[in-house]
């Protein structure tokens, strides 16, 4: 085994770095370019069709904080702009051929993009983010407007400030802030006519709201007038709207007052009188369907039907002749929603989508059409899919829920079982001969295949695609030669409640399930996945199974812990309780929140849950599982975080197995009190995996034995008062602090990323202090690499992986650490993992400049000497320490893919020891293969069968030529030698 390790490292060093060929793009890897689930809550961010020149595009703001332009023809992403987390998009506005966005607290930043290409044209800070007022919904109090063929933009931010800027240079022309600073009146909309700019808002008055309008001179920002419109609005979001039209000079403010509509036309002097409209009906609310700038709004009647209220070209109000009847009457279980949009000529259209609640639910619809029959409708389902329906047929669909994936695991899949014909013992001679003849009919094909394979040398190679060439849907999914084809089980966040099974070879969605709400379906609620465990692997026999632990928050406030048990190959319920076409129903494990859960990997894989009272629940809850649990429970320990008297603590627990009917209870055994003001950010267990070698042989033939205490875990802490961040490595049984380091927090707080595998700990942070001690006083990101070894010096062995945690030797260790200057900010990191752990573990990081990059373990070796290497050190492939880590673009495994906002990197072993599968997810999803020590276990890619055949045939030829010569010579020798 050690030989293999040495060989692996040797090969990796001799052949340089493993890198990807251009021809491998899309073969060994795939990338899903996603934009996130559209935010349909407000028309400022909701998806809408817009015509740019003669091209139609779909624009949307999304829950992943992205502004995206989609192509309505095929659903591809034309462009997207990914915003930072601290800069949330509050809305986008189409102005001429640009898309203008407002983002950040209170609308701090204005950006303007070319609508067709997504090029950033202008970025302007309107106010400091600290001065931003928070609002709910987030789009309230922000608006952008402009006149056609004018460069000037009028921007409302913070609900109280109106700024006029030049749309090309960003130069501020004037700024007006309402006298009350937004404390009394919140402006929600800007209406621009040729004569005046109207800032329309609502003012709080007793028990209701009053509409307030300020008219401003657009050129100078001078106030013309400011007035309250005598009105009483109870809900400002649904009972108040403003209709405009580009060909109407007087915009109209509409509001509902006790079921009747009031309206007033806006003139610069604000002298018009408010009038009610008597329509004989009682109205409940206005629904903005994105057409208020085209003078149309939807009005809900008391009886549930809807009418469209229209502003005529001559400035009069009229309701539509037709109306959408209430769904209650037509079919009680059919829900509906409305959408609207203009066509290329600017004629508005309204569409209604109706659906049955048993199906996926559509909640947003946009329509654009030349004729009513030629309509395109964009639908966002409650499960996060974006679909385009063209004339009643589904044209394309995007699974944007994958942009919200929070948990994902690789699951190995079984080999295809050759369908052997049943052989019965009582088979007669004739029957057997007949069967064998029948079976032999495949022989010619086999022989032909064999010869072809032998000659052409077309074997499966680690750089070939693992996806099947033919559709094998009938036989189900099966693995490829090297196990690159696995199922990625991914659970989505954001309460979308979806689980996906994704083929790791090509990114196809093999299955997807909606998580059922159980009893909460009646009151509504949402499901937040917490943990995902693979409870049955291929080696256990049968189909692999996964358990998803989730938290269900019902809308009535009750919180439960639910467990979903799935077959990873098909997505069907492993307990066979729910049907494949119905939502997947879970088991309510705990009536309350989950404190912690673990997967016990004993003879049987058991999931252990702890509730608030630290009672242990088992899944599966069988007597066999209980016995196994009772047998191993005394050796189990786990840490939890608590706070006692304002001081945060990490408390270790052990489990007392109950003999009777009560549940087993966990009890505290040790506690680590953190300094006052220091908070626990995260508890991270050591990454588990096979350890191939327990030591490292040095150049001078001594051995450093790895400190492999299996109970270690990492704690990340933050002390905001001292602006320090802590990294602890603790023993979960005793609470011994094995390693502790403190680094400076930065302006964003503590953002330390860490990974701990085998005896190797790495952490990444920003060193902001100039000349901050390590890495030669450089400023920038740091990656610290720490390796733990047994004993105090070389050749000391304590068998740390096996000894009892109560042995004194558990604290007999030493470590090496080195700090390196890291080129980027990172959002996630992980180490590669392989089947036997022989291959070097490289570090895979997802960087903030949208790359997934691997960093060599050799370069991160903390034993790199600070001087010229000696011969012995060279034998170990140690390189002289250089604070700067080499940043080799050849190691960017995501190459030109833009892998944005990765939140997690997951690696999984393939069947080939040399190769590891890597998945990065967050906004995008990216899967590739890496071979940190090169593919030493298969023929190298430059191995060439032709060359081999050529050489052998050359040798054969040489033998054939020399053979008669040698024969002649030996014959002559026999004749002439005496």
């Amino acid at each position, binding site marked *: 085994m050690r030989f293999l390790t040495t060989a692996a490292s040797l090969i990796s060093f001799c052949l340089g770095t493993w*890198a*990807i*060929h*251009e*021809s491998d*793009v899309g073969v060994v890897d795939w990338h899903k370019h996603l934009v996130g689930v559209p935010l349909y809550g407000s028309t400022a961010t909701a998806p809408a069709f817009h015509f740019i020149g003669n091209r139609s595009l779909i624009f949307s703001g999304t829950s992943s904080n992205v502004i995206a332009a989609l192509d309505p023809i095929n659903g591809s992403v034309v462009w997207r*702009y*990914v915003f930072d987390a601290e800069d949330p998009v509050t809305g986008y506005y189409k102005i001429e051929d640009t898309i203008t966005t407002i983002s950040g607290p209170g609308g701090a930043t204005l*950006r303007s993009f*070319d609508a067709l*290409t997504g*090029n*950033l*044209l*202008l*970025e*302007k*800070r309107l106010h*400091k983010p600290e001065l931003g007022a928070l609002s709910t919904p987030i789009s309230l109090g922000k608006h952008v407007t402009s006149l056609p063929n004018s460069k000037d933009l009028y921007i409302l931010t913070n609900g109280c400030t109106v700024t006029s800027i030049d749309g090309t240079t960003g130069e501020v022309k004037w700024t007006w*802030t309402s*006298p*009350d*600073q937004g404390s009394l009146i919140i402006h929600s909309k800007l209406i621009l006519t040729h004569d005046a700019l109207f800032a329309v808002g609502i003012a709080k008055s007793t028990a209701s709201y009053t509409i307030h309008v300020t008219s401003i001179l657009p050129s100078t920002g001078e106030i013309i007038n400011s007035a309250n419109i005598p009105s009483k609005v109870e809900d400002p979001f649904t009972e108040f709207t403003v209709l405009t039209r580009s060909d109407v000079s007087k915009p109209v403010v509409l509001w509902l007052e006790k079921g009747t509509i009031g309206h007033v036309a806006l003139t610069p002097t604000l002298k018009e009188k408010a009038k009610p409209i008597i329509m004989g009906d009682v109205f409940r609310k206005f629904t903005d369907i994105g057409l208020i700038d085209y003078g149309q709004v939807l009005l809900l009647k008391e009886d549930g039907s809807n009418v469209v209220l229209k502003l005529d070209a001559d400035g009069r109000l009229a309701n539509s002749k037709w109306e959408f009847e209430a769904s209650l009457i037509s079919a009680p279980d059919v829900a509906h929603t409305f959408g609207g949009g203009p066509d290329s000529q600017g004629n508005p259209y309204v569409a209604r989508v109706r659906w049955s609640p048993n199906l996926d639910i559509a909640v947003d619809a946009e329509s654009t059409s030349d004729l009513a029959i030629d309509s395109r409708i964009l639908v966002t389902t409650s499960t996060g899919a974006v679909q385009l329906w063209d004339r009643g047929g589904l044209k394309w669909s995007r699974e944007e829920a994958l942009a919200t994936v929070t948990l994902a695991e690789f699951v190995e899949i079984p080999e295809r079982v050759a369908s052997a014909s049943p052989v019965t013992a009582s088979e007669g001679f004739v029957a057997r001969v007949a069967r064998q003849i029948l079976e032999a009919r495949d022989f010619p094909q086999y022989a032909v295949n064999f010869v072809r394979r032998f000659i052409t040398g077309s074997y499966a190679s680690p750089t070939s695609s693992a996806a099947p060439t033919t559709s094998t849907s009938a036989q189900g999914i099966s693995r490829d030669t090297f196990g690159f084809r696995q199922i990625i089980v991914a659970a989505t966040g954001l309460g979308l409640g979806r689980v996906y099974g994704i083929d790791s070879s090509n990114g196809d969605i093999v299955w997807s399930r909606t998580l059922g709400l159980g009893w909460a379906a009646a009151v509504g609620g949402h499901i937040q996945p917490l943990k995902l465990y693979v409870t049955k692997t291929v080696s256990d026999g049968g189909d692999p199974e996964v358990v998803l632990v989730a938290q269900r928050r019902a809308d009535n406030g009750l919180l439960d812990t639910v467990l979903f048990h799935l077959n990873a190959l098909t997505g069907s319920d492993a307990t066979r309780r729910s049907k494949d076409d119905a939502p997947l129903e879970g088991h309510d494990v705990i009536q309350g929140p989950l404190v912690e859960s673990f997967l016990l990997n004993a003879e049987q894989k058991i999931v252990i849950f702890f509730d608030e009272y630290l009672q242990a629940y088992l899944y599966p809850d069988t007597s066999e599982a209980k016995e196994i649990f009772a047998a191993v429970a005394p050796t189990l320990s786990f840490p939890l975080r608590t706070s006692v008297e304002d001081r945060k603590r990490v408390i270790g627990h052990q489990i007392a197995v109950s003999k009777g009917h009560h549940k087993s209870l966990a009890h505290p055994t040790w506690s680590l009190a953190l300094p006052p003001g220091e908070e626990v950010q995260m508890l991270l267990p050591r990454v588990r995996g096979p350890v191939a070698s327990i030591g490292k042989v040095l150049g001078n033939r001594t051995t450093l034995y790895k400190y492999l205490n299996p109970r270690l875990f990492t704690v990340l802490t933050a002390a905001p008062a001292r602006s320090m961040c802590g990294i602890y490595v603790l023993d979960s049984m005793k609470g011994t602090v094995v390693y502790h380091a403190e680094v400076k927090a*930065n*302006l*964003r707080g503590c*953002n330390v990323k860490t990974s701990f595998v085998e005896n190797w700990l790495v952490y990444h942070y*920003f060193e*902001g202090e*100039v*000349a901050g001690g390590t890495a*030669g*006083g*450089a*400023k*920038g*990101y740091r990656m610290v690499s720490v390796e733990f070894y047994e004993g105090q010096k070389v050749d000391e062995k304590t068998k740390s992986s096996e000894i009892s945690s109560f042995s004194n030797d558990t604290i007999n260790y030493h470590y090496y650490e080195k700090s390196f*200057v890291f*080129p980027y*900010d990172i959002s996630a990191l992980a180490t590669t993992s392989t089947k036997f752990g022989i291959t070097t573990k490289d570090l895979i990081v997802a960087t*903030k*400049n*949208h790359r997934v990059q691997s960093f060599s373990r050799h370069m991160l070796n903390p034993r790199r000497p600070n001087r010229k290497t000696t011969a012995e050190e060279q034998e170990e492939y140690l390189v002289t320490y*250089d*604070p*700067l880590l080499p940043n080799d*673009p*050849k190691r*960017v495994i995501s*190459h*030109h893919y*833009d892998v944005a906002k990765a939140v997690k990197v997951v690696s999984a072993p393939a069947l080939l020891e040399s190769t590891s599968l890597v998945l990065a997810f967050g906004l995008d999803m990216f899967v590739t293969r890496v071979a940190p020590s090169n593919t030493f276990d298969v023929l190298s*890619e*430059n191995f*060439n069968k*032709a*060359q081999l055949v050529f050489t052998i045939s050359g040798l054969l030829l*040489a033998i054939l030529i*020399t053979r008669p010569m040698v024969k002649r*010579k030996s014959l002559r020798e026999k004749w002439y030698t005496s």
Partner: protein
Amino acid sequence: MARIVFLLQALSWITLALAFDIVGKVSWNDVCRNAKALGQAKASLDEGVYSGGITAEGRFTIPDVPEGTYLLSILSHDFTFDQLRVDVTNASLPEVRPYIPGTPFDPPSSVLLPYPIVLSAKEKADYFVPPESFNLAAMFSNPMMLLMVGVAVMMLGMPYLIKNMDPEALEEFKEQQAKMGSIQNAFQSGDIKAGFSSIMAAAEEQSATSSTGPQRGGAKTRGSKRTKR
């Protein structure tokens, strides 16, 4: 109310005095020709709390930067840019200096760069390695391969060469070979002394041959030299 507005205005003046907008430009060059090639990129100070997007014209503005010493870097997916040290002081303009990653941040470089900042892409990342393919010419241009071919040719051609040699030269050659053989044997059997003595003997003989050289026929000398090779 007017007083509040005044106070706020005063406050905004104070913030203006404390914070500075850092402006700069990415100048397009042969490495990165336009904003489309650059993609979504931003200029960021330190860990990115202060940052500004790079527009289609290549301009960026990092707004409201308080006093301090910062490391300016351009975050781009495909391109590498130089890092700069930016000192925002209460002087009118920030001081911009080059910075080489991995070197101490202090003391600052004595080179002052102009402000507004102008940066250009240093290189475009090349993510791929060319595939190694089988090439007969390349295979034979490999020195190892050439050596092997040479040895094979010698092996095949040697008997003929020996056969065609004139008997005298052959005699000499055989003698030489026998000597070499004895030296090798001596070393292999561990008899270093004997080995050295045989080398010495060979050398002596050689010098003797060369000294007697002119008295012999020219053609023969040439022949013997050839065989020695």
